[in-house]
């Protein structure tokens, strides 16, 4: 199948790839660009393990074609920390025991990153609704919610 050349920003770096028109963004990010932090849990947009940020919106990269990211700006978990310092969301997930097996964590944190820009000081109920597109099987969510609250407070005070 003929390949298409695409170019986009990935975690602040310009990247390019040759992809088939049918190739999914998650596969290109993980397999060609070797950023394996974003995971594949269902390939049907339900679980959110593959959540990335594209042009300022949370996006499940298992159901988006890589060509749709052409010219865009993509953020994955690998781009969260700045200058070697963990982002407040990352620090809060560790502090509040918001992760266990770690498989949902990258997508969960990338969603939290966008959610807290949409709603910088959310209530618990708003977190539960705003993050409901990301599934976790280990934590029972309670400590994830706590982590998002703690991160929100930290980010507000900065």
């Amino acid at each position, binding site marked *: 199948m003929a390949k298409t050349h695409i170019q986009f920003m990935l975690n602040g770096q310009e990247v390019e790839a040759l992809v*088939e028109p*049918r*190739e999914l963004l998650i*596969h290109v990010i*993980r*397999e060609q660009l*070797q*950023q*394996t*932090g*974003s*995971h*594949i*849990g*269902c*390939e*049907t947009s*339900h*679980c959110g*393990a593959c959540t990335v940020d594209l042009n300022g919106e949370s996006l499940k990269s298992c159901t988006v074609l890589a060509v749709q990211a052409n010219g865009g700006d993509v953020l*994955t*978990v*690998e781009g*969260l*920390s700045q200058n070697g310092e*963990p982002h407040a969301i*990352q620090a809060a*997930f*560790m*502090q509040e*025991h918001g*992760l*266990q*097996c*770690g*498989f*949902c*964590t*990258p997508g969960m*944190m990338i969603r939290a990153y966008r959610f807290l820009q949409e709603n910088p000081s959310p209530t618990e109920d708003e*977190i*539960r*609704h705003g*993050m*409901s*597109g990301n*599934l*976790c*099987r*280990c*934590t*029972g*969510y*309670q*400590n*994830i*919610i706590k982590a998002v609250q703690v991160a929100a407070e930290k980010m507000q005070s900065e």
Partner: protein
Amino acid sequence: MTDKQEREEGLQGVGCSRKRKEDPRFIQGKGNYVDDVKLPGMLVGKVVRSPFAHAKIISINKEAALALPGVVAVLTAEDLKPLNLHWMPTLAGDVQAVLADEKVSFQYQEVAMVIANDRYTAADAADLVEVEYEELPVVIDAHKAMDADAAIVRDDLVGKDTAGQGPRKHNNHIFSWDVGDKDATDRAFESAEVTVRQEMYNHRVHPCPLETCGCVASFDKVKGDLTVYITSQAPHVVRTVVTLLSGIPESKVRVISPDIGGGFGNKVGIYPGYVCAIVGSIVLGRPVKWVEDRIENLSTTSFARDYHMVGELAADKEGNIKAMRVDVLADHGAFNAHAQPTKWPAGLFSICTGSYDIPVAYANVNGVYTNKAPGGVAYRCSFRVTEAVYVIERTIDVLAQKLSIDPAEIRMKNFIKPEQFPYQSALGWEYDSGDYPTALKKVLEAVDYVGLRREQAEKKARGEIMGIGICTFTEVVGAGPSKNCDILGVGMFDSAEIRIHPTGSAIARMGTMSTGQGHETTYAQIIATELGLASEDVQIEEGNTSTAPYGLGTYGSRTTPVGAAATVMAARKIREKARKIAAHLLEVSENDLEWDVDQFRVVGSPDQAKTMKEIAWAAYNSVPEGMEMGLEAVDYYDPPNFTFPFGAYVAVLDIDKFTGETKVRRFYALDDCGTRINPMIIEGQIHGGLNEGYAVAMGQELPYDEAGNLLGNTFMDYFWPTMVETPKWELDYTVTPSPHHPMGAKGVAESPHVGSIPCFSNAINDAFGQFGVSHVDMPHNAYRVWQTLKELDLNKG
């Protein structure tokens, strides 16, 4: 703070909520899961699966698939036959087709594996494999499996009087297993003042971890070495099975479980996809990756439960239980591939007398084949313990209802009393320790149980429906004593190897395998406390069979009861050697030394002391005459008994009588897991277990239609609670140490799953109990609850 307290805190040992050692890599996206493994020249395998539940394979045409550029091979049973790998043994004494041999016996069964350069080509080629089938009649209803005219699920077993677990009486019969005194139980029922009998179905579900199963097999044709990266909770068992199947010496097989994205029992078994990838790599001399997709995961790799149960209790009019009788029809699907100790066809189901002092009991289980996916794994529980706890906790509520006794009161009345421990149960267990009345009392007070019952009555008067569920469960975990527990003949011990380096840091390796429980954190805490070295300086490694000592892996809550016990024993061997070295350095007798947090000091002369760090250095240059150098130990721990964690849970929920939707208003969980190693991690494990229990009780289900089509194998259908519907958890605990475990710990992660399922179900049944219903089956999703409301004519204004 005293000097001693300061030194203790500095260790970050047992009892502290140490932050997890695993987290820095996970929060940076630097975990290394199987699908992240990428080897040079790696190929990708895709399984071709059956659309039918039962059909003869007339022909398989690979030509079109092989003609597609990028396709390297297409494997079928015919290709595996010369290697004698078209069938494989299961952990339950049966055999399972690796690739369908002449016929398929369940929908989505593995028929062929396409191996190609990349995942897209493999998927395209899988669609090009032409398989011609001739449909056969199916057996889907387990109750009809042993009818005279039932279709035969397993032609390969026709004429055989056993399927590896004792005699069988029908072509679709797998085993009969019973335990207890049948005659004495029958007599107790005949003479009882009151009896109850309740049929209930523990429905078929799937553990469904977020990461599906997969592997990367890499065979080095020059050296003859095989390396397999695999999503396994039991990598050493995988290595042994690979050797038994392939003939490659165990010394040349390296199985590596890297980071694993959750297991919950799904990743104990050996699946056809693994075998095909391994064969592919051996034949082609290139690495082969196989990672299943979500539909494949839910459809093929190990369901759990599917127990059709009848629970009976005999009692006097005051509610004192005199006897229990249980009959089970177990649907094991097309191959008996349940994962439990080999000699226990119904696992540890005989824990079904629960937390109660029941004088006589009898349990009988029959396993049958049906045209459904094989398995029968322990989904976040010790083998079949969830089913056992469900049957007693539901039936005792049915008895309470019949006698008009409050469910809390009937439990208090029948509890095994604290002074009865160690307690010998009617079905053969020796419960190690427990204090059930204290636990339940604490919970009832915390939730204001009396007030809740009052509120429920008031609501009923107003036409509103509220349910209160209680569950007081006892688990049996930590398989297990090798005298009665083995997997394929290997005793179910576990192991730890600890090595102290000259400068006082350490590395320890275990035979268990974390799938998110935080072993790198907690094992180090145990070693810190035992050896007086900071947990930060103790590196934990698991999952590489070439470096870790042989162990049976992590499932059935066995890491703490068995693996942690091995760790403590290995550490204590090191401490004994360290004592000798300290005595030598201080020029005193060993008997003059006492252990003090992180050092040996001379009794009565506290200034004279040697820290463990100093001793570690000396172990490499100044040991007593005749002693070998170094400071390390290994321990293979064969537990003397299981451990018996317990808990008391209360669920409070409201039912919308018009829609059938339920809102869990409170869930209060008290757990007793004995000595607590890391309270933060315990809390996290309990939150997760409760949520999985909520999922099972309220919605998860693998339903089949009459033709054997699986109707719920995507996340569109298979219930996985989001943050929105997940209840808020309230936790509590008591501590009753295990007397036989070297640090008194019992294991915790599975209790909340086991205990919460009957608790939620009891709450729903309590709500309907107000209207005379004794039992409705799970899952209690809105539609099913609404159906009950409609039957009771309650869905009106």
